[in-house]
């Protein structure tokens, strides 16, 4: 059969968003690929130059619609680096708990979207069902289902409500059982194994050189994690360890490793949350008023000319980084230049090349296993 180019996208079930993958197939085998991005480029970096530092947070929420809290936190750490703010420890704990809840929700969304890619439709509804638990928890903090606008420069918007801790612990305990349920459903299924194992190999050093980060690196056998390598929160005080896989081939990690490492990360997040909610300073059932010194530190609103802020944050899909130059118009009220580094923007072209040589049916399996999110990719 002759070789032909197939254009997958922008509207395609495989893409998990809006982008185009041009695939050159020889029969059922992929011989060449080409990625095309930019279908939802909103120009957030330009808009941010006309907003002050508090107004930028909602845009960072909307950068990645699956893990809004982590992206808002990532920006907030950069802004605190720029404005030289010391954050109270209780606020750090609350940020950690909220970010890990968001990580659970995001990984559940990934697993739910990965099920239809492989063909199991029930997995999607189950994962979304469990995701609702954590959306409710985050809703108690931020007041919205998806975009919370919760962290502030110097702390968080409001304290955890009374009784939040009990609900959190109960739901985490329930969810730890649900993880075993999913593993029983998937790891015991031979079809799931033969679809994921031996597909989409990626070596660790190649991925690092190409800019891939996060769980995809840890799936290749190294426990490199921004949370301990470039520490930014109280992750050194709570009980956890980075999830890491043992790839079974010299060719690196395959889709099954990436699936396993995300399941393991969900376990670690549960462990982290259960430990942090006990260690939180000021007590887990006390509720400080908004703006209290325990949860919100005084922060300047103007950045000096020439000051820069940088944050390196372990987002759910990899290392998300913000670089802010202070001293813009309005005498420093808003950034002169806000630069966003999205992990998926660099990962997607690499993944497109990773598919070469596999079958057409493996394209969604490989693409989905890297967890693409186009909102952060196009900014």
């Amino acid at each position, binding site marked *: 059969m002759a070789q032909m180019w197939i254009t997958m996208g922008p509207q395609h079930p495989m893409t998990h968003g809006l982008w185009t993958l041009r695939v050159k197939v020889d029969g*059922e085998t992929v011989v060449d690929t080409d990625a095309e991005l930019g279908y939802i480029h909103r120009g957030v970096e330009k808009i941010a130059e006309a907003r002050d530092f508090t107004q930028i947070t909602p845009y960072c929420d909307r950068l990645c619609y699956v893990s809004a809290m982590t992206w808002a936190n990532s920006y907030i750490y950069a802004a605190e680096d720029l404005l030289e703010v010391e954050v109270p420890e209780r606020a750090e704990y609350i940020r950690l708990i909220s970010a890990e809840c968001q990580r659970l929700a995001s990984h559940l969304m990934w697993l739910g979207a990965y099920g239809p890619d492989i063909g199991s439709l*029930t997995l999607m509804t*189950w994962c979304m069902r469990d995701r609702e638990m954590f959306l409710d928890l985050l809703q108690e903090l931020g007041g919205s289902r998806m975009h919370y606008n919760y962290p502030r420069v110097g702390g968080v918007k409001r304290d955890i409500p009374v009784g939040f801790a009990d609900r959190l612990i109960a739901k985490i305990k329930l969810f730890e059982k649900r993880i075993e349920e999913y593993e029983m459903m998937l790891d015991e299924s031979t079809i799931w194994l033969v679809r994921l194992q031996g597909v989409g190999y990626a070596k660790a050093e190649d991925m690092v050189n190409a800019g891939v980060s996060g769980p995809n690196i840890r799936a290749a056998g190294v426990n490199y994690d921004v949370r301990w390598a470039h520490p930014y929160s109280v992750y050194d005080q709570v009980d956890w360890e980075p999830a890491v896989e043992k790839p079974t081939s010299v060719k690196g990690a395959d889709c099954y490793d990436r699936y396993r490492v995300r399941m393991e990360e969900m376990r670690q997040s549960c462990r982290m949350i259960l430990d942090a909610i006990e260690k939180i300073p000021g007590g887990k059932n006390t509720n400080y008023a908004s703006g209290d010194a325990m949860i919100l530190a005084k922060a300047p609103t103007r950045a000096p000319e020439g000051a820069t802020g940088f944050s390196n944050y372990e987002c759910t899909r990899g290392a998300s980084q913000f670089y802010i130059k202070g001293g813009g118009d309005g005498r420093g009220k808003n950034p002169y230049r806000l630069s966003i580094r999205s992990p998926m923007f660099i990962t997607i072209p690499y993944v497109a090349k990773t598919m070469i040589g596999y079958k057409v049916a493996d394209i969604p399996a490989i693409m989905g296993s890297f967890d693409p999110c186009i909102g952060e990719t196009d900014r």
Partner: protein
Amino acid sequence: MDDKYDLVGFMLSRDGVLRSSLIDLLSGTPLEDSASSISFAVATFALVNVVFLMLFFSQFAILWIERKAVARMQDRYGATTALRSLWVGENGVTAGEWWNMLPFGLGTPIGAVNKWLNKNFGNRDENFPTVDRVNNRSWMGKTILPGFFQNVADGMKFLVKEHMVPQRADRLIFEVSPFLIVSSTLLILGMIPLSSGIYATNPDLSILYAIAIFGIAPIGVFFAGWSSNNKYTLIGGIRSAAQLTAYEIPLLLTLLSVAILSGTFNIVESIHFQHSAGAWNIFLMPLAAALFLITMIAEVERVPFDMPEAEAELVEGWWTEYGGMRFGMLFMAEYIRTYAACFLFTHFFLGGWHLPFQGTIGSIEFLGLGGLYLLIPGAIMTLVKSWLVFLIVFVWARFSLARIRTDQILEFGWRMLLPLAVLQVFLALVYRLYLFKPENMADTVAGGNAWDAFGIPSLVPILTTLFWLAIFVIYLNDEDKSATPERMFHVHTVEPAGTVVPGQE
């Protein structure tokens, strides 16, 4: 044993009520000479229509079964669409008194009925209209057969959708292939008896005929995939052709073993054999039953063998370009094929219209309970059995399994199913030649006992079932949890990743 309710005899036999009355009616008219053939034609037409309508409308049940069963598997409630909104409108917005637009006041009774329905079964007063609306609480959320009419609505909607043909498509073949698929699928229903007395036609080689009809639709699928002039549909058509070719052969061998065991190529006679010999075929050939189900799932292209219409990579597979009623017909054809597969499994392995333990319970003399038990119509039994097969096998497999890759499908078909089917043929030969006692066959209520051994009645089916059950249990538990998980299937990589620069080849 024949079913009590003999529609065929009622309509077609020369002294049956219908034909005799027709002949009496025509006597004395110029048509008297040909009265016999005319009555035969009329009776055949009536019979075929009755059987076809029974089969066709009973398939709305499996659509409903699938929809609600899937909802339960996914912790949802499922479709709740009912006919109520015909008279209560949508959220209180109605279409006005549309019946007054009918000419000559024909709509007046419709208006009266509508008023009565609204008075008795209308919406209750709602305190929070939006909340009740979104949570589907109007009329306390109670509906008749919730969701049953959803499929009716889908079908009727497709009727009025615009018909589009892609500009570059080969228009003739694009238009013809759905009709090829649908017509060949409907022909299968002609071969399927609902009971010994209710069938459209019953040729001697009906098994071969049904399977031959099954083999026609793939051609239409490939035509549809090619003529749409779309790369997704083309790949889907090619996948479908390869897959169906690979799975036809094990299917035919399985049915050959059934025919060998029951000594006939006729569906009705094979069902009679299962009762007369005293055991259903599934207890004699569990392997054949499993092979038949697997190959049939592949034949009707459902998960896990739905590569031709894989939503993930091929948008909707080979019917991506079909919209409107063409898509509705293809959708219906797929379900008719599935339904026919359920019927064939019921007839070949589950004893067709025979009741469970018909011989034992049917021969109870106490208070005539056996007679009462035998009064259950065989057609109902056939429908219930095939619905259960659909629910337990097809729906459950579709929504709990994932999708296999094309090369794995073909590898599975050629390397595992084909040898097993050959083995099953030999097993059937051995059973028929050495373990089968023809002299013990009896076509009575109690049934025969042709499968006894050493004087123990029906020892052969018991031992066979236990043997295969043991093998199944061992296969389930033999995996070594502690061993390092070795990768099972490796994909051959033609070029290492990243070595090809796009645009330069």
